[in-house]
């Protein structure tokens, strides 16, 4: 089922023409209105007239998170402030915050993309959508909210947290679609089991999860504990928010709303585009954004793209599930380690709970990596030898996947903090 069939099934030739037209328009606007881009283009010796088709995008300058900070709050805006109707922002945990203004048309596009996304997962106006993403400056809550409203579904704007209430309303309102972060979905699944509620008695059928990377094993666990089919929604506030891309029933990648956001995958070292199917840094260029259009914004998310047709009939480029962030990557003794690798291993070991904490430290010149895991209650035994067997089994699996030695530490049940938003998985003490 499509929300916007002509666009979602547009031929590749027509999409190419549409993207080329829109890129020319966007470049013209930023060149005229944004000093930052005008200067950058002049430095590169290019003018808007040099951009004739979408392929010419490789001539354009990049934009990074740092550029957003440096030009905070409105230095990259292409329209007068009076045209803003909403301003989202990220908290400045690592320095200055960043802001993302939207015009009326930008919010319409946002809602359109989210409506398409929910429709792509099988959602209709008959559904009750429980939005357990945080509302506020974070785009998750309001983004899904507006899209579900556009679709005509009944929205339950509960926001994140307050788990008991989530479970109550889920039952009383017969929620059929749950939207939240995957780690919170896992947490809700656990809470449901603790409350003794059989997930089959719920009306839930669809889960729309995103805003942090998650593994296939985590999907299986969520699908079982909540009795839903889980879909992956992708987005980032700098580009829009959730709805930039969505997985379909074939679960073979996420369809990108390519008529609004042009995707590229770049080699993280050379910043040159890589071939379809190769993992690299995902980069987006706004094609229709009015308030603050960004050229080649480097997301730091690692993914790959394919243009092969999907069985669902959608013709868009598909991005693979985000397999990590170039920021999250830990370099330990020269080896690249992604927390998502550890999570995948833990989900394969029934004796361990999927919650974990990585503590990286340095002893002398040697980096150490400690993994704290909780043993599943069902497997707790009174004999140390058996517990040690479990600990060694976890260690062996992790060591073989990461290819470095990890200290595995068993900790008491529930000592690892459960997260209601993005989970804190890594403590790096090396710089303290």
């Amino acid at each position, binding site marked *: 089922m499509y929300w916007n069939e002509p666009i979602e099934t547009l031929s590749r030739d027509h999409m190419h023409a549409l993207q080329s037209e829109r890129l020319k328009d966007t470049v013209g606007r930023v060149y005229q209105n944004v000093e930052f881009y005008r200067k950058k283009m002049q430095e590169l010796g290019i003018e808007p007239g040099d951009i004739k088709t979408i392929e010419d995008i490789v001539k354009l300058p990049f934009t990074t998170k740092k550029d957003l900070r440096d030009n905070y709050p409105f230095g990259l805006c292409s329209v007068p402030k009076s045209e803003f109707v909403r301003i989202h922002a990220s908290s400045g945990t690592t320095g200055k915050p960043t802001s993302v203004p939207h015009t009326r048309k930008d919010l319409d596009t946002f809602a359109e993309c989210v409506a398409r996304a929910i429709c792509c997962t099988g959602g209709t106006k008959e559904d009750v959508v429980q939005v357990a993403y945080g509302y506020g400056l974070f785009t998750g809550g309001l983004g899904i909210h507006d899209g579900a409203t556009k679709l005509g579904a009944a929205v339950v704007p509960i926001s994140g947290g307050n788990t008991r209430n989530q479970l109550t309303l889920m039952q009383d309102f017969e929620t059929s679609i749950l939207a939240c972060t995957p780690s919170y979905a896992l947490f809700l699944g656990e809470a449901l089991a603790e409350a003794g509620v059989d997930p089959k008695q719920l009306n839930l059928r669809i889960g729309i999860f995103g805003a942090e990377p998650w593994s296939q094993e985590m999907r299986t666990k969520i699908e079982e504990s909540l009795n839903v089919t889980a879909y992956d929604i992708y987005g980032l506030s700098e580009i829009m928010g959730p709805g930039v891309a969505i997985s379909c029933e074939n679960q073979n990648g996420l369809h990108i709303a390519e008529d609004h956001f042009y995707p590229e995958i770049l080699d993280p070292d050379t910043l040159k585009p890589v071939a379809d199917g190769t993992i690299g840094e995902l980069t987006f260029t706004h094609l229709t954004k009015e308030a603050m259009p960004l050229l080649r914004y480097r997301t730091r998310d690692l993914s790959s793209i394919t243009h092969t047709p999907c069985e669902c009939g959608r013709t868009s480029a598909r991005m693979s599930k985000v397999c990590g962030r170039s920021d999250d990557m830990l370099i330990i003794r020269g080896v690249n380690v992604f927390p998502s690798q550890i999570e995948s291993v833990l989900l394969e070991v029934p004796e361990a709970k999927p919650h974990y904490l990585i503590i990286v430290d340095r002893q002398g010149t040697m980096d150490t990596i400690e993994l704290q895991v909780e043993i599943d209650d069902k497997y*707790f035994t*009174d*004999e*140390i030898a058996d*517990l040690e067997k479990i600990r060694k089994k976890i260690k062996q699996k992790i060591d073989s996947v990461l290819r470095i030695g990890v200290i595995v530490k*068993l*900790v*008491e*049940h*529930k000592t690892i903090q459960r997260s209601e938003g993005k989970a804190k998985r890594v403590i790096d003490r090396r710089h303290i």
Partner: protein
Amino acid sequence: MIIKQLSVFVQNESGRLMEVTEALHEANVNISALNIAETAEYGVLRMIVDDIEKAVNALKDLSYSIKVTDVLCVEMPDVPGSLNRVLKALLSVDLNVAYMYGYSNDGKAPLILKVVDNERAQIALKEAELE
């Protein structure tokens, strides 16, 4: 005789053990025997208590990982060679002792034993006139 033993997973950090004893104290549970097996990072606290149900509930409320296991309690005379006789009896039926703990007082020496087969152990102990 076969009795119930309560085991609790505790991290090997200061104060952790006291949190358990505090919870049991608040639940008015009395501990009659106790043993800790430890590694550098964690330990397993094994206890014989007067009201196991109350103890289980109190610790479950605090999210502890716990396990109730059947263990053997042998009351031996407090004389030289008693423990030796018990172990000999168990060995005669091929039973290994996973762990044990005990004390002696007032001429009696109760011993808590964990073996893989309690029934088989009891028969062997009866034959050796230890039960």
